[in-house]
């Protein structure tokens, strides 16, 4: 619906991904230099200048499959590898966290503050790297340029667009359940107390005026909530107090995070239809991925730095078990790129794939175009 929703979706999901990976790297006792390497590589890829430029162009929100493909790529931008089950769990956690944040944003415009919170926290992870810090600051500046002038109505449309993306996702996250922000049926708690959003008055007052504009009567009514006025507004500058806590790192306390993928909402029929039906949008999504990933420079791993596998679960057995018991309707299918006769697209893909560092041994054959597509299929 809105053509400005994609950057906010991408950057916030990316931020959540970094929070979770940071926590798991520490939980799995990955040596500090390797962990730092992984996070830096992902951040470098995510905030690549031409990638961000492409992202910020007005465009429709693409399908969940296309987004998932980008994050698969991003998570593998470094020496770290994730099995399918761990990648699925990572993506579940990312999406439910952002769904919660968007739903609970006091004002539609606060989605921007949530984004700034993610970027601020990301900057905290790369304090030792001025070049990276500069990249993130640049992105902040560009966001302010693009979103600073949007009206409340346009932000309302952005929020509705994001909520459409998250519709019908009810995966239960143990951290949310423990903190009582999510109910056991997977729905988030919407509090009816606390500060009202900035710019909104506490409900409860009726004011009546005459034809000259003079107030003739005021009456209070019981509005049912327990609200107070908002203390102050968050900052929309490059640096500043965001006030809002949504989008800050909730994993900083070292607690294991589990998702419950069974017993989710029965209303997944629309979701299931989306993943089972043959993808008629493959061409457009391919175009999108080509453009986006064309700007995504993957850093080549130099030297004998050995890779490692990160597990989002506490044991390998748990990870295997999760892979076996994942409900069909929740399988996050990655874009299945059908071989296309389009010469131009093949060339475009060839160029992109040339920039990617592939971890596995590539199968090269005479027809490079076909093989590149086949490699993408293996994602």
């Amino acid at each position, binding site marked *: *619906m*809105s*053509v*400005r929703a994609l950057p906010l979706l991408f950057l916030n999901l990316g931020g959540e991904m970094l929070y979770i990976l940071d926590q798991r790297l520490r939980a799995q006792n990955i040596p500090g230099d390797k962990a730092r390497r992984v996070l830096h590589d992902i951040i470098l890829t995510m905030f690549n200048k031409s990638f961000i430029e492409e992202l910020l162009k*007005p465009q*429709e*929100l*693409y399908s969940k499959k296309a987004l998932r493909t980008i994050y698969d790529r991003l998570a593998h931008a470094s020496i770290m590898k994730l099995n399918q089950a761990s990648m699925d769990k990572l993506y579940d956690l990312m999406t439910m966290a952002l769904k919660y944040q968007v739903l609970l944003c*006091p004002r*539609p415009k606060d989605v921007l503050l949530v984004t700034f919170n993610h970027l601020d926290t990301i900057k905290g992870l790369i304090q030792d790297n001025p070049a990276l810090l500069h990249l993130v600051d640049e992105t902040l500046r560009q966001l302010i340029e693009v979103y600073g002038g949007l*009206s*409340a*109505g*346009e932000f*309302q*449309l952005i*929020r*509705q667009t994001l*909520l*459409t993306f998250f*519709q*019908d996702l*009810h995966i239960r996250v143990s951290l949310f359940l423990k903190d009582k922000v999510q*109910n056991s049926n997977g*729905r*988030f*708690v*919407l509090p*009816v107390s606390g500060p*009202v*959003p900035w*710019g*909104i*008055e*506490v*409900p*409860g*007052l*009726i*004011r*009546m*005026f*005459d*034809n000259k*504009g003079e107030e*003739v*009567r005021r*009456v209070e*009514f*019981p*509005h*049912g*909530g327990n*609200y107070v006025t908002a203390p102050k507004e968050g900052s929309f500058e490059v640096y500043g107090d965001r006030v809002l806590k949504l989008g800050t790192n909730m994993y900083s306390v070292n607690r294991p995070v589990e998702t419950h993928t069974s017993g989710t*909402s029965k*209303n997944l*029929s*629309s979701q299931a239809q989306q993943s089972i039906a043959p993808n008629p*949008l493959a061409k*457009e999504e391919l175009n999108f991925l080509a453009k986006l990933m064309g700007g995504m420079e993957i850093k080549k791993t130099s030297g004998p730095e050995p890779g490692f596998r990160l597990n989002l679960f506490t044991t390998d057995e748990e990870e295997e078990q999760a892979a076996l018991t994942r409900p069909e309707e929740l399988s996050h299918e990655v874009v299945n790129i059908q071989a296309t006769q389009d010469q131009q697209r093949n060339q475009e893909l060839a160029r992109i794939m040339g920039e990617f560092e592939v971890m596995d041994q590539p199968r090269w054959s005479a027809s490079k175009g076909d093989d590149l597509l086949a490699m993408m299929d293996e994602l």
Partner: protein
Amino acid sequence: MVAADSEGPSDPGVRMFRRQRSIPLRGSAAALSNNLSVLQLPVCNLTHFGVVHGPSAQLLSVAPEGVPLAQRQLHAKEGAGVSSPLITQVHWCALPFRVLLVLTSHRGIQMYESDGSVMVYWHALDSRDASPVQAMFARGIASCGHFICVGMWSGRVLVFDIPAKGPNIVLSEELAGHPTSVTDIASEPAQEQDCMADVVTADDSGLLCVWRSGPEFKLLTRIPGFGVPCTSVQLWKGIAAVGYGNGQVRLYETSTGALHVQINAHARAICALDLAPEVGKLLSAAEDTFVHIWKLSKRTESGCTEVEHCHGECVPDTQVCGARFCDPSGSSFAVTGYDLAEILTFSSE
């Protein structure tokens, strides 16, 4: 959960609302404004409900006691574009000789016979008007006499002339009056002599335009906004009841544009307003999970408007996206919520 009932002595009979049986939906309701349309058919004791899910909308016909009888799904007509087009609104339009169901989307405007069985008209959005920085869509539907008005992302309002029967629907006029996207349109039957206005259109900037319908619509008044989108609008006895993104409900006298009432009604954006015009009841629903019912009265001597709070209802943990009265006396209402695959109903009888 009942939030609060006011002590008002005027209507003791309509104060206690009870949750009735929910009506299940095939798909959850989308996070849109005005996402519930109700067609009351007292003659056959049926109620029709219309809810937008996303790329599809669901129509339900329900017998008394909330027993669902039949359902139908309608889809946005595909056109050029990347993804499945999303529907923005579905609404029944009662005209003098027929009822049409109108569906607006990111591709255009679809009009059906009232049960959704036959599409009688399709109007595609003009891609030549497309702007690279804004999505195209139609949104805001109201009937007025034998016209149907539909709003556009550009701020224009299309006026269609509807024949008594058949598909010969004609685009009669394009109204220019709004600088930003239209959000909602309201109308009421032409009143007494002094109430000439019968259509109100609203937009994302909060601006309201008051019109008199006819072969050529006439712009009578402009009521400026205050930087907050107007999400929903109703018209009653020449009074525009307006819901805003800051949770306020305001009542304006349309002939002068004067503000008569300002209610700090909700803690989040209002998503829907509805009227039970015969009894002067107004319903407001917002993303703060609350639905409130108000009694409006117009004091003819002073020309003032008075508002009394009648009832408040909390729909726990639900971001409400649509709400409507289900009967002319305003003694029952239905609510939809984002991500909720059912229509909640409440009745005070």
